């Protein structure tokens, strides 16, 4: 674990293993208190409130396996088309 201190901001906790790096920090705006979990390599982030965090505590390992069904993020509904469809159209 590494703790990253940026002046004037809350510290960021960073944990990593062989497979990825993740950062966690605390954010608050007035009433709202959340944990910001972000993936600097993939560019995703999520803000989790206490109830969401609580729900994590009873998830079996399989839930997380399911979440990793798409290991690089959700991807979007692409309208995939082959390069051949673009050829000869100028």
């Amino acid at each position: 674990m590494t703790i990253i201190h940026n002046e004037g901001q809350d510290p960021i906790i960073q944990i990593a293993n062989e497979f990825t790096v993740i950062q966690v920090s605390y954010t608050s705006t007035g009433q709202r208190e959340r944990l910001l979990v972000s993936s600097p390599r993939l560019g995703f982030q999520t803000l989790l409130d206490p109830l969401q965090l609580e729900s994590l505590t009873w998830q079996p390992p399989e839930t997380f396996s399911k979440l990793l069904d798409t290991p690089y993020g959700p991807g979007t509904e692409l309208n995939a088309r082959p390069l051949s469809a673009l050829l000869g159209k100028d």
Partner: protein
Amino acid sequence: MLRNELRQILEKGLHDVEADWTVPAAIINDPEMHDAERERVFGRSWVFLAHESEIPERGDYVVRYISEDQFIVCRDEDGEVRGHLNSCRHRGMQVCRAEMGNASHFRCPYHGWTYNNKGSLVGVPAGREAYGNKLDKSLWQLKPVPKLDTYKGLIFGCLDPDAQSLDDYLGDMKFYLDIVLDRSDAGLQVVGAPQRWVVDANWKLGADNFIGDAYHTMMTHRSMVELGLAPPDPKFALYGEHVHTEHGHGLGIIGPPPGIPLPEFLGMPENIVEQLQRRLSPEQVEVFRPVAFIHGTVFPNLSIGNFLMSKDHVSPPTSFLTLRLWHPLGPDKMEIMSFFLVEKEAPDWYKEESYQAYVRTFGISGAFEQDDAENWRSITRVLGAQYAKKMELNYQMGRGVYEPDPDWPGPGKAFPMDYAEANQRNFMEYWMQLMVTDPAPHNKNGKVSDAAAAEALTRAEA
């Protein structure tokens, strides 16, 4: 198939080891021997992978080897110990490139196939676009170690799905292993990661040295006696018992030299001595009471050293326990992995003293360790040459001197005194038997049939 020439060397070797107590030098450093050995010895033996205390928490893993195959040995999210081939089912990439870590999931660095630590494939990037979601993930889990089992905290794997059980394989050696592995209620812990280094030597020389070579200490480690780090009698390693069991295992158990008082039970801390007297059988306690050194090898490549030694010339001796793995990298190269273990419940002062005694004697830069490696390098280099390969090596120590000891309270074949080579002959004989036994024929499903495997084993043990 074994080339004829190799088969002849081995068959003659098998005859000679019984009749003349010699061993062909060609088994040490020859590329073809080594190729055959990978399949015939490492492909069928139970090989030590890790100690359970190295992966205490869910998700902990280490990467370990059986010959060239590498396995992720991990504790899954349910706490069960598993071993997965470290090779992605897509193109075979190493899934895990760190030698140790903690992960609930492993993500292949090539295309990103992702496995949980039970080995199931759970994620495939662009699964919809690339596979139309039609890839049946349940068919593509990481390959497990064909057989995985543990004995008193030691995790072993075997590549032969039809091999005998680990329990049967260890057989009578368990009586002696228990003395080392099972003497305290909470058991042992490996401290730190194993020390690892590569030596230009054949792995069998390490196994041979630990299984029975008390004799070399007088010459190779003489400087230790001169420095006051080993007992003053240079023949200190003679005063013991030399024991071997089936399947190539063996050990030497050495007591104090005459007239030199040494503490009982390797001078272990009081609380451990109290526990071991309760845990071990009366015969095991009797064997362990006067011990100063235990050196042994579990066939093929796991050795044990439980030694009473001083960390310097003024400190009193402290015992320590090391396991070492002679991992073959080629006919003339091995990686040594040296583990330091200590009873979890031992007091802190003992853990510290014990660790220091280990580091300074049998750690990577330890004095004993360096003395030994230099001999093994030189032997390997010399025996790799054409003319030298044709020699027979002399395994005749103790011939006509010692008869099996009828008074020994433990199992196995025991000889009085530790200057003998019965253990080494037993090791080499079993190794050569495995080498001349052809792998069991495969049936149509590509699986070894049980009957064929059983037959091969009987032949190997005949």
